[in-house]
């Protein structure tokens, strides 16, 4: 059974890989992994759109159009002072009722290649008030833009990291779907 599955995988991969050590050439689906001891999440995905479009989708009120978890929450009141040490904030409206807030500041803005920003939540059951630092990198790729995300600062709060990693995969999926529709 497992051998059959492996054979099927190989057949599929042989269409898209020149060598078994190469990555598949198909669009990279969102993936996030966690180093719980180091308190780091690493995530990446190929998304549609140019680095420029991706950068804007993450740093302007466009974010309200796509960063939403159907049945769980949507965001509103995005504010961003888009310069180094500038503050950003957003309100997260929970579908079950209630509102939480996320905020932080921009640390590095290298349009359209890199964005570093801090983030903390005012009412997070796993993360408390811990601030994390998010580094986004945007590189042109054959499928649009390769987005790499590092979210650091979870030392001692590994459960928050494992939870957030799953959410990062969703977020990158929503971002891709939004940019595909543009």
């Amino acid at each position, binding site marked *: 059974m*497992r*051998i059959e599955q*492996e*054979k099927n995988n*190989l057949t599929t991969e042989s269409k898209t890989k020149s*060598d*078994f*050590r*190469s*990555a*598949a050439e198909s669009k*990279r689906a969102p*993936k*996030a*992994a*966690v*180093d*719980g*001891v*180091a308190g*780091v999440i*690493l*995530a*990446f995905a190929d998304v549609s759109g140019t680095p420029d479009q991706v950068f804007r989708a993450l740093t302007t009120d466009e974010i309200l159009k796509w960063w939403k*978890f*159907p*049945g*769980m*929450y949507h965001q509103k009141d995005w504010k961003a002072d888009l310069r180094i040490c500038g503050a950003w904030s957003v309100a997260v409206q929970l579908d079950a009722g209630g509102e939480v807030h996320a905020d932080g500041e921009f640390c590095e803005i290298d349009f359209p290649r890199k964005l570093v920003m801090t983030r903390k939540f005012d009412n*997070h*059951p*796993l*993360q408390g008030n811990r601030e994390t630092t998010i580094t986004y*990198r945007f*590189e042109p790729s054959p499928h649009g833009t*390769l987005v*790499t995300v*590092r979210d650091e600062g979870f030392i001692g709060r590994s*459960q*928050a990291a*494992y*939870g*957030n*990693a*799953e*959410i990062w995969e969703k977020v990158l999926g929503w971002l891709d779907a939004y940019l595909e529709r543009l």
Partner: protein
Amino acid sequence: MTTDSKTKSDFRSAVESKKAPKAAVDGVAGMILALAEVSGTPDQTFRALITNEVEKWWTIPGVYHLKDWKADLRVQGRWSVTVELNDGKQLNEWGEFCELDVPNKIVMTRRFGANPLLGERETTLTYRFESSPHGTLVTLREEGFIGRPEAAYGNAENWEKVLSWLDGYLAGRKKEKKKR
């Protein structure tokens, strides 16, 4: 959504089901980060990775298998293995152990004899093993790919497979033990 709500107490929590292998890459930092929950104890997982048990499970059917595992299990001790491709060609992998903390952590270097993407570059693997409700949570960092991101993206895909084979092997051993 429906599935998540069955296994999560809060949308910010990780699902409680067994963590499938996932590997992500930071191409600029030259690093792969991977994790998975595998069957078996940390001790069993540790041994499956650093003894000749590795020959039993680290194989891509139809592509390659490993043989001639050798390991001098001490800090600065060498390890090596032969990768036999299905067309008969043989490649070599080797490196040394940097840290051995049974059954919690392994740090080891790795080089390949003929890797089209990685060349002669040495990478450093750090495995961590933690008991988890589903067996052992394995976290893996592989570092040293700066300037060779394509090797990192390829290796990341392979790590997901390797962690899945490791889980399959350890799950099989568990079943065998129960039968006895």
